[in-house]
């Protein structure tokens, strides 16, 4: 790992400088994570007196549990939809802003701020708009002959959280797409224009392929976001319902561990989630290394 050519010689000082960060990391990150791994292999009796070591039983039970498999599927649908929807809209807006000179800045400001809205606030906002009794969208949908009730209909509930989660994430993707577009060499685009390629052809054959590092990076970030940072969005809108239709993996860990108090199963779910984050982070950092050579 890189350091400076010359360094300070102190023996004790670097450790002192690292103590606060490492103390917080160990006490609040590593120790609890270790505990989660440990209790995922144990079963606690109903009164909490005795714990027995049961190998992979908690995991096996999870993968036989139709609710867990359902939650896994729901999470996949949710993550893919949020990623696709928020990234494609963000790309559209970024390409549009990139065509403009001065007015682009105004649009950028107007599109950027939802980043600062808390996920739970986003959830409640969309829940309010779609509220079956007073919301404006069910009212408009009813005029088109579509009945909307996310309290009863699982598909409606899923659409609601996808919209709320995507709405908040557009600003982030937009920002990175704008940065990516600005690094596309203008000379290539101009050369293609001289050769007679129209704007759409130029986009698909030159700009979009050159954006692929950004696109790939954002894909990972968005999947990560949809899986792990949307707890508030779901809690603020559907609360995992109806009948588990929007019960994503993270929401289920919370519900099982805190409301259901099933520690062993919740711990096993936590460990599975950790493996997913580790995989996503590994992919992301491998890509970062590749980009350096790009």
């Amino acid at each position: 790992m890189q350091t400076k050519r010359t360094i300070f010689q102190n023996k004790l000082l670097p450790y002192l400088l690292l103590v606060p960060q490492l103390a917080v990391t160990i006490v609040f990150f590593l120790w609890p994570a270790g505990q989660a791994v440990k209790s995922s292999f144990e079963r606690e009796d109903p009164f909490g007196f005795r714990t027995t070591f049961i190998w992979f039983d908690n995991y096996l039970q999870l993968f036989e549990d139709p609710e867990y498999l359902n939650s896994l599927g729901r999470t996949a649908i949710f993550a893919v939809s949020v990623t696709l929807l928020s990234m494609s809209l963000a790309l559209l807006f970024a390409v549009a802003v990139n065509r403009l000179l001065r007015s682009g800045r105004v649009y950028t400001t107007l599109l950027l701020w939802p980043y600062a809205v808390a996920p739970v606030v986003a959830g409640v906002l969309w829940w309010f708009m779609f509220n079956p009794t007073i919301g404006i969208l069910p009212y408009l949908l009813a005029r088109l002959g579509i009945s909307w009730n996310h309290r009863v209909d699982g598909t409606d509930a899923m659409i609601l959280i996808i919209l709320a989660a995507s709405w908040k994430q557009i600003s982030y993707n937009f920002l990175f797409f704008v940065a990516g577009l600005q690094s596309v060499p203008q000379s290539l685009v101009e050369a293609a224009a001289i050769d007679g390629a129209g704007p759409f052809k130029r986009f698909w054959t030159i700009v979009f392929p050159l954006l692929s590092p950004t696109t790939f990076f954002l894909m990972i970030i968005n999947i990560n976001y949809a899986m792990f940072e949307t707890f508030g969005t779901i809690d603020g809108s559907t609360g995992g319902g109806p009948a588990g239709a929007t019960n994503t993996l993270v929401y289920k860990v919370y519900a099982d561990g805190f409301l259901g108090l099933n520690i062993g199963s919740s711990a096993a779910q936590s460990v599975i989630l950790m493996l997913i984050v580790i995989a996503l982070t590994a992919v992301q950092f491998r890509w970062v290394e590749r980009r350096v050579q790009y």
Partner: protein
Amino acid sequence: MVENRPFLTFLTHFVLILGVIVVVFPVYLAFIASTQGPSDFLSGVVPLLPGSHLMENYGQMLTGGMSRAGAPPLWILLGNSLLMAIIIAVGKIAISIISAYAIVYFRFPFRLLAFWLIFITLMLPVEVRIVPTFKVVADLGMLNSYAGLTIPLIASATATFLFRQFFLTIPDELMEAARVDGSGPMKFFRDILLPLSRTNIAALFVVLFIYGWIQYLWPLLITNDSRYYTIVMAIKRLAAVADSDPQWNLVMAAMILAMLPPVLVVILMQRLFVKGLVETEK
């Protein structure tokens, strides 16, 4: 722009205006709702034009709160949120900048191990270790306290990496010159590195302030005393009450108040915000 195509320019503006409308509309609706009187929701659909109860609703929420939802006056919650966001942002920056300094400017046994331990925190978001982390905090007696709200969130791999990257770009000659002039490591840090990191610190502060403000799950877990509620975590409680008892005007006033501070930070400090966000992801 490569060529002049009026239709495409028109289309560009059209798409962007549509986009801005989609992005702004939910908040516009919330704002409108927050200006209505209590009886304006009985007709069925939310009105689309502002009502006349703006000051009244906000005044009531800020100073009185909503007793039926168990919410104290919102200015207390706003104060808690502000305090939490600032402590988290300052704390993360402080402990990250000194760790990065240790990792870049010193060579010592277990340096690589320390680096990896910090790196691992990236892979352990609160959401995947909810129950055991709660237990640790409970055992340490940090439930319902500002320490419990902030300290467990204060470790930061991304901030450490950002400062490490930045320190690596600082010319070695600066440090050599400082050493020749007889400055020790702390003096070099204080008089040279800190001033040079000013922009990075400011950019990071903006991003981390937002991060701290929008925390939801964590305060939800570790507070049940309303004196320590943050505004973001109280929102759901308010909304749940409003659903059975139409006080939407008050709930939406609370929503706007919960959004306003971080959104203003993004709008007013857009340049720093963009810099902070783009650079922490590198």
